[in-house]
């Protein structure tokens, strides 16, 4: 088979679906979602073909399949675009294709396909539910179909295109194109219910915040292109270029060029993967529909940031010899990653909204990966990327299922409560057994429940990577974060599923349709099994039973440069066991049986600090005070009132007056005598000539042909005379 061609085709199917949905089928819901899911399925199938080929042909993958075409001519060379498949692409394709396909299918159920249209539903608002009369003549409230159903799948198609493009591209140009299209889709889909003010604001916030990172990243890319003269991975990551980058000194702060570019590109990663200074958009992005949160803000787009960091690891770590003396970008990554991990884990503890907990947990887990890269645990970061994408997609889909069930209850009872607030739930395990089971699997994977779940293995690798590399501060910070992670996970599970129902709506919650539960089951299967590909060999008892396939596979990316840390210690293992089990136990203990009247147990134990946590450390307010207010003041007072109104307007008015004066002069001295008079003469002359020449116009085409023939002969004759 022609594997290069297949790789080219992977992103194209969703793009085609996007165009067809928006141009042709947008009025037909069934056709639209069939097209979108069909395209996702085609991409999935092609990805699976590629993955199976890659997994069975390690020696081919070591070199990488790659094919390029010339795209834009620059002065002497071409900007090339192309695709490639190597180990990193393969594992990324694996989780991307599975999650995208599953979430596409899930969205059909989530948007109530097959339900009647709502009575007062309008485009731009979430569906309010419809009132129908059942067979017994009773009025019943049921969920209604999303008004902009087809549009949603169109956007999803575009997004899937961008994500696949980013994953399979072999150069930074198409990667950046995919990156920005995903930013756009994120904006469009967060603001999918654009008539909701909060959704609109969240969309703008997400777009602008990630833009800050993207600008730095673009500068980084431009610098990289200026220095290396190419955007192809194979050129940039070749040993000569890396060596060159690592040894030349840039004009900024005495960093090497590799360090500077690495920092700039890391800024893009910070924006996209929502790390500490720019993390504020991700929690607000939960205003979008839940499949969006699952796909864009958990599984794929935010993972793309980490993917880029992993992809760029050779540049980021240029000059690193594998020891404890890490490079500047790695240091920054370790600090920011581990800080974000702890910081957002603590915020997650105090959230009441079921999706916001998961949002902060996503930020925290992405921080784990960044920190892992910072301490050089390359394989661990990639491993956690895969496992996290799968179980976080599972958790988000599960939360969507919970909300859906709660909305069903709300519609039934007509209560005025927030269906996303965890304190309105409780005891759902009886009502929604499949959702409960899968959510527990996902949650335990997130908490790192030992031995069974995928999250344990990947998180354990990160911890042992940090510990064995000698970064004990990073190790302890991450361990505490892991503990808090387990704690808030159990808190969430307990609040939502255990105990007794705290509202009427929760009592009437309902299991969701098959289109939603089947993806949950599929993903929970992977949330358990995917961890077994990467069990480290030195692990006591079961280590070595299953070969550490992931290490071998991803090892092909590093071409033997990666220095394997030899001394193993059991401390990280014990730590990860203790933190996950302890966190889970504590969370369960505290939140096992909360009733309607109870307050959050943390509220009395942490007293004032709880308020700080619930308000997310006041980061948003801080940004409001430091950046946005001054910016507004400057634009209002200085730019608008001073520059615009006084200086620019005055200047323009002056120009206008001078022009009017000049124009009057021209009119009397030039326009009337010369142009008008002359024009009249020209017209009458033309008319006279036309009247005289009219006779030659017989209107018969053949007469003209005779004339043409005669004149061409005459012309040839004259030409001949002149020539000879």
């Amino acid at each position, binding site marked *: 088979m022609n594997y290069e061609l297949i790789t080219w085709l992977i992103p194209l199917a969703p793009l085609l679906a996007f165009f067809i949905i928006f141009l042709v089928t947008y009025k037909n819901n069934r056709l639209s979602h069939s097209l979108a899911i069909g395209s996702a399925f085609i991409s999935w199938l092609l990805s699976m073909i590629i993955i199976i080929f890659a997994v069975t042909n390690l020696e081919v993958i070591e070199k990488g399949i790659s094919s390029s075409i010339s795209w834009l001519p620059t002065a002497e060379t071409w900007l090339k675009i192309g695709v490639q498949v190597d180990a990193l692409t393969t594992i990324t394709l694996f989780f991307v294709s599975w999650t995208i396909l599953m979430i596409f299918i899930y969205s059909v159920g989530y948007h109530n396909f097959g339900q009647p249209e709502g009575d007062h539903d309008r485009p731009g608002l979430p569906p309010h539910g419809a009132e129908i009369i059942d067979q017994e003549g009773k009025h019943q409230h049921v969920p209604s179909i999303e008004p902009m159903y087809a549009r949603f799948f169109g956007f999803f198609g575009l997004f899937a295109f961008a994500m696949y493009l980013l994953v399979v591209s072999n150069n930074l140009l198409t990667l950046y194109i995919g990156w920005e299209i995903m930013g756009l889709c994120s904006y469009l889909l967060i603001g999918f219910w654009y008539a909701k003010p909060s959704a609109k604001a969240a969309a703008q916030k997400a777009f602008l915040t990630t833009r800050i990172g993207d600008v730095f990243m673009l500068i980084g890319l431009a610098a990289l292109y200026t220095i290396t003269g190419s955007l192809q991975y194979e050129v940039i990551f070749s040993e000569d270029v890396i060596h060159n980058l690592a040894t030349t000194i840039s004009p900024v702060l005495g960093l090497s060029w590799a360090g500077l570019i690495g920092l700039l590109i890391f800024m893009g990663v910070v924006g996209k993967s929502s790390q500490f200074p720019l993390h504020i958009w991700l929690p607000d992005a939960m205003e979008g529909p839940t499949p969006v949160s699952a796909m864009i803000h958990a599984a794929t787009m935010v993972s793309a940031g980490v993917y880029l960091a992993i992809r760029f690891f050779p540049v980021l770590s240029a000059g690193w010899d594998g020891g404890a003396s890490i490079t500047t970008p790695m240091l920054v990554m370790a600090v920011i990653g581990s800080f974000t991990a702890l910081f957002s884990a603590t915020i997650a503890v105090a959230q009441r909204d079921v999706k916001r907990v998961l949002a902060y947990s996503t930020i925290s887990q992405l921080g784990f990966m960044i920190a892992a890269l910072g301490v050089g645990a390359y394989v661990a970061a990639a491993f956690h990327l895969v496992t996290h994408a799968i179980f976080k997609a599972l958790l988000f889909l599960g939360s969507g299922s919970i909300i859906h069930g709660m909305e069903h209850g709300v519609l039934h009872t007509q209560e005025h409560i927030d269906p996303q607030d965890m304190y309105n739930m409780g005891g759902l395990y009886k009502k929604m057994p499949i959702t409960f089971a899968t959510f527990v699997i996902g949650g335990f994977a997130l908490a790192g429940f030992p031995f069974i779940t995928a999250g344990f293995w990947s998180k354990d690798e990160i911890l042992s990577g940090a510990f064995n590399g000698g970064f004990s501060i990073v190790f302890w910070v991450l361990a505490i974060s892991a503990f808090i992670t387990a704690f808030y996970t159990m808190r969430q599970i307990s609040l939502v599923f255990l105990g007794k129902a705290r509202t009427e709506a929760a009592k009437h919650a309902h299991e969701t349709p098959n289109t939603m539960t089947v993806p949950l089951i599929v993903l929970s299967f992977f949330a358990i099994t995917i961890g077994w590909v990467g069990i480290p060999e030195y692990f006591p008892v079961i280590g070595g039973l299953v070969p550490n396939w992931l290490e071998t596979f991803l090892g092909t990316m590093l071409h033997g440069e990666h220095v394997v840390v030899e001394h193993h210690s059991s401390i990280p293992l014990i730590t990860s066991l203790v933190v996950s089990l302890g966190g889970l136990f504590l969370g369960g203990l505290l939140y096992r049986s909360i009733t309607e009247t109870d307050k959050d147990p943390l509220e009395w134990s942490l007293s004032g600090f709880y308020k700080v946590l619930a308000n997310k450390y006041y980061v948003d307010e801080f940004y409001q005070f430091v950046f946005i207010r001054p910016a507004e003041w400057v634009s209002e007072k200085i730019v608008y009132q001073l520059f615009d109104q006084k200086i620019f307007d005055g200047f323009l008015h002056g120009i206008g007056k001078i022009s009017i004066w000049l124009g009057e002069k021209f009119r009397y001295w030039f326009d009337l005598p010369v142009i008008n008079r002359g024009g009249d003469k020209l017209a009458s002359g033309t008319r006279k000539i036309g009247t005289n020449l*009219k006779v030659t116009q017989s209107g*018969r*085409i053949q007469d003209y042909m005779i004339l043409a*023939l005669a004149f061409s002969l005459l012309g040839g004759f004259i030409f001949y005379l002149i020539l000879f």
Partner: protein
Amino acid sequence: MIPLSWYLILAAVLFSIGMFGAISRKNAVAVLISIELMLNAVNINILAFWHYHSQLLGYTEINGLVFAAVVIIAAAAEVAIGLAIILAVYRVRKTVVASDINVLKG
């Protein structure tokens, strides 16, 4: 075996006959037919020179083939449109005589 000039003379004669027909026939369909003759003559010329050039080069030279193909395509399009116009005119004015269609008379 056959000199190049034979082909060219044949083409020239055909072209002249076609030109005569295109200018002097009354019936618009006949004018179209004559134009087809001229196009055929052109194609003979193109292919004769193609053969000559390929013979000099020793391998297949494609420019001549492409030009001949374009001429045939243009001829097909021209006949389709031309006959459609003639039929449309015939329907309105009940004539196919080219010199009766003289609305553009000055």
